[in-house]
């Protein structure tokens, strides 16, 4: 899957599953600070990524996902 495809699919997930505003979802946006996702929301995000991209994200890798860009990079690395 191309990076642009991952970004687009992830954006849809964030809008549909977490109810985030599409306009605010940019690569540099921090989930907790900029997008106001709470700790349970971060867990939801990880579950949604795992289910929809068919990847596994262990806790130690999950801790490194702070921004939307981090999530895209993590998914890209898993799929390559």
């Amino acid at each position, binding site marked *: 899957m191309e990076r642009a495809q991952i970004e687009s699919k992830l954006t849809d997930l964030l809008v549909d*599953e977490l109810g985030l505003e599409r306009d605010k979802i940019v690569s540099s946006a921090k989930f907790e600070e900029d997008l106001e996702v*709470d700790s*349970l929301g971060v867990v*939801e995000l990880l*579950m949604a990524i795992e289910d929809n991209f068919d990847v596994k994200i262990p806790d130690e890798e999950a801790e490194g996902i702070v921004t939307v860009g981090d999530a895209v990079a993590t998914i890209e690395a898993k799929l390559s």
Partner: protein
Amino acid sequence: MARVALVTGGSRGIGSAIARRLGAAGHTVAVNYAHNADAAKQVVAAITDGGGSALAVGADVGDEEAVAAMFQAVEEDLGKVEILVNNAGITRDDLLLRMGAEAWDDVLTTNLRSVYLCSRAALRGMVRARWGRIVSIGSVAGISGNPGQANYAAAKAGIIGFSRSLAKEVGSRGITVNVVAPGFIETDMTAALGEDTVQAAVGSISLGRLGRPDEIASLVGYLASDEAGYITGQTIVVDGGLAL
């Protein structure tokens, strides 16, 4: 609104009454059982005869893999679990000085580990749906203690702390988590206490009688409903005014 409900230990006693109650309320009910498939099928038949829909699912709810398989089977057949009733419970009574580690572990596994495993499995769908009801069956023994039941009381008290914590974790997602703590109810579990113990207990019950399983089920039915959406983290005692 009709939902998908799962009742652990739903083949007998209080669990059976809860499963029937939820079925009568129009919910689709998965009736879990550990050993007694025939009893679970009778509960399913009672629900379907009343015009409801139900399914029997066997699983040892203290076992992680069995719980995962049970949820998979229920979700494939009925859909995501929206109402979870953690009812499965056993006793292995003994005075602590004589209580073996096996009696401790068996009770903690079936009565408390099961609550963790089933709640975690159900939450995934509930969080996504932004709606859920988790009702666990505690016991007055978990509040007041009971000689010979240190293991059972510990598990039941554990359910209360678990439920309060989980209520705080998932409240923002429209999920409520509550405990119903019965006193002495007419079931095989209280019958096993013996006539003398039961009579002594009745003497300290304000209403002067044991409770009926449907008197627990009616509250569980309410807590599982849309109407009860502002009650969470609570332990509600249903004991006929025991030792007031």
